[in-house]
């Protein structure tokens, strides 16, 4: 804590107002770009030469509110990536007498607020694989899978350390979602952690009274908009998933309501009439025999009003429109057939293909059938998703993981189970 005071630049005599508190070590004159040491009798440490001042919407001395706290811009650093000279961004040092120091980061119309945090255990991070970190109940994943180095290009105003052009910092950027990230910065003598949050540019400009002509706002891409929607509020798709969950739950509860509408055994060709009472569900035809030969000796036809709806024997399967892929296997002693039949009366025709055979088959038909082997995994996935979403602040990643798992399930249940196990192992390891 300290008071505001003014000095004259020892090189060009320009008046310099110092507002940044007792931690400030240097001030860089905005006129002659001399870096002045405040702890050593205002000695000029060095001068930035051939300086091109970048055009940005913020200026030193501006005041505004972020996160409910009044901040003053006291310093400015322009960084660039070591590998890419054109990739530049500005970091403005903020000062609040109550909350100390923080950073306002500006890059091509994107504005973020960053402040140092001390409660991330860096010793654990240093020993780990550095791919992800877990902080405040949130997972952050390393962007681009590796660290990068930044270089100081330009300095103005007050800073809490002596910064020189060309100073390098190694950074690890970890992202939780489109707005929240953590950066771990390693300079030659310090390792620091910064929590960064992307801000609404319009609100920041308004709060810092930035002239409308100076305001640059980056239009979010479609993916950024979608991410933002997912993160800031539960998206319509979330409620869609809840609706599907309720539907599946109701379906599972109702699945006990299936009804046997025909149960007969045949030892010769014959017919039977059955009535389907609801078209909202499936009709299950179960055929059983004592041996695979007995099963292969028969064919089944379902007709309605003299029109063939379905036919099956050991070699072929037809529905009303086309031949389907294959019938039961030669070694099968039973088969279950699920048909989507309209409500009404049907005729079942059983034909014995080998007249000399003495075998017998049993036919059972149930209507109002729900196939739980399809619904149950979906139900479990959505249940897991909803539980995780309930305990997590952010659902976007979970949402995409759940969708991914659903797709995998539709491709291959084995792949689905494998990815579930891998995901679980990774999650457990990561949480450590």
């Amino acid at each position, binding site marked *: *804590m*300290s008071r505001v005071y003014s000095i004259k630049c020892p090189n060009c005599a320009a008046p310099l107002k110092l507002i940044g*508190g*007792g*931690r400030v070590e240097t001030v860089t004159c905005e006129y002659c770009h001399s870096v002045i040491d*405040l*702890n050593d009798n205002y000695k000029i440490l060095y001068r930035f030469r051939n300086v091109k001042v970048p055009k940005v919407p913020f200026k030193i001395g501006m005041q505004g509110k972020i*996160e409910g706290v009044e901040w003053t811009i006291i310093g400015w650093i322009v960084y660039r990536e070591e590998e890419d000279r054109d990739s530049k961004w500005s970091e403005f040092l903020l000062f*609040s*007498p*109550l*909350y*100390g*120091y*923080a950073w306002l980061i500006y890059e091509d119309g994107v504005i973020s607020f960053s402040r*140092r*945090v*001390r*409660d*991330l*255990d*860096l*010793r*654990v991070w240093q020993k780990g694989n550095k791919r992800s970190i877990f902080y405040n109940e949130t997972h952050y994943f390393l962007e681009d899978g590796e660290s990068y180095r930044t270089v100081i290009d330009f300095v103005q105003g007050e800073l809490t350390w002596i910064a020189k052009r060309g100073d390098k910092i190694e950074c690890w950027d970890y992202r939780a979602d489109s707005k929240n990230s953590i950066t771990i910065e390693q300079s030659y003598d310090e390792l620091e952690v910064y929590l960064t949050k992307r801000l609404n540019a319009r609100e920041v400009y308004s709060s810092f009274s930035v002239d409308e002509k100076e305001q640059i706002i980056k239009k979010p891409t479609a993916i950024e908009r979608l991410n933002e929607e997912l993160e800031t509020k539960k998206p319509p798709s979330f409620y869609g998933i809840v609706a599907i969950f309720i539907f599946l739950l109701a379906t599972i509860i109702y699945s006990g309501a299936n009804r046997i509408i025909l149960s007969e055994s045949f030892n010769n060709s014959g017919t039977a009439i059955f009535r389907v009472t609801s078209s909202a569900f499936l009709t299950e035809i179960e055929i059983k025999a004592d041996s695979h030969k007995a099963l292969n000796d028969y064919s089944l036809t379902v007709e309605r009003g003299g029109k063939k709806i379905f036919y099956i024997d050991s070699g072929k399967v037809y529905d009303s429109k086309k031949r389907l892929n294959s019938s039961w296997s030669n070694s099968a002693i039973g088969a279950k057939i699920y048909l989507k039949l309209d409500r009404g009366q049907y005729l079942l025709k059983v034909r014995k293909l080998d007249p000399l055979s003495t075998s017998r088959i049993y036919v059972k038909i149930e209507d109002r059938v729900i196939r739980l082997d399809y619904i149950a995994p979906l139900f479990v996935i959505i249940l897991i998703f909803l539980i995780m979403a309930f305990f997590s602040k952010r659902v976007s990643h979970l949402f995409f993981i759940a969708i991914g798992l659903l797709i995998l399930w539709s491709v291959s249940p084995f792949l689905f189970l494998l990815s579930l196990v891998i995901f679980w192992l990774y999650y457990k390891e990561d949480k450590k």
Partner: protein
Amino acid sequence: MKREAIYKSHIEKTINCPQCGYPLPIYFKWTKLVQCPACKSSIFLEDESVKLIGKSSTLSPEPSLLTIGEPIIIENKSFLPLGKIRYSYGRGFWEEWFLKGESNREFWLSIDEGDFALERPLNIPLPFKDFRELQVGREYGKYIVTEKNSAECVGFEGELPREIKIGEVYEYAHLSKGGASLVTVEYQNGNMRIFVGEWIDPFKIKRVYS
């Protein structure tokens, strides 16, 4: 057992300022030093007696998240700020706030331009014998020394659990064993006082009566 919120804590005793007679409620059982808000006299409390030890200067008002007598909550625990000591380090200063915690425990909240550390006095074994041998950046057992410096006490307000002398300089060191953990060792006249705690996020400090 249901915890009693600190802001409902009672006054331990009330004394009268020996200089001006102003009634001074004492909130902490082991308070040693109190400043009379009316005449700025420093009063030393010993057993049942009170002793006037001089007049202290008024601290310049500075913005702070804390106010004496206004309870705060940090991560669901309540604290009552009762006093503060201001230390100078040349171009600036920082403040050590004495907080009464739940169950009448002593806590100290160090506030230095955005760096907030909450600690309490605790005698723990330290892996060094002589404070003077400590070097910044060196590891001692599981601790690494992150800061070593000296500070001058420039004033105080409210009530404090120990006697301090204005203008006195003492040495201190910060030790860390990773993360937000912090051990502060104060050294004066060959004696060490140990405080154990952690760095806290100032955004987590909430006033009870905002």
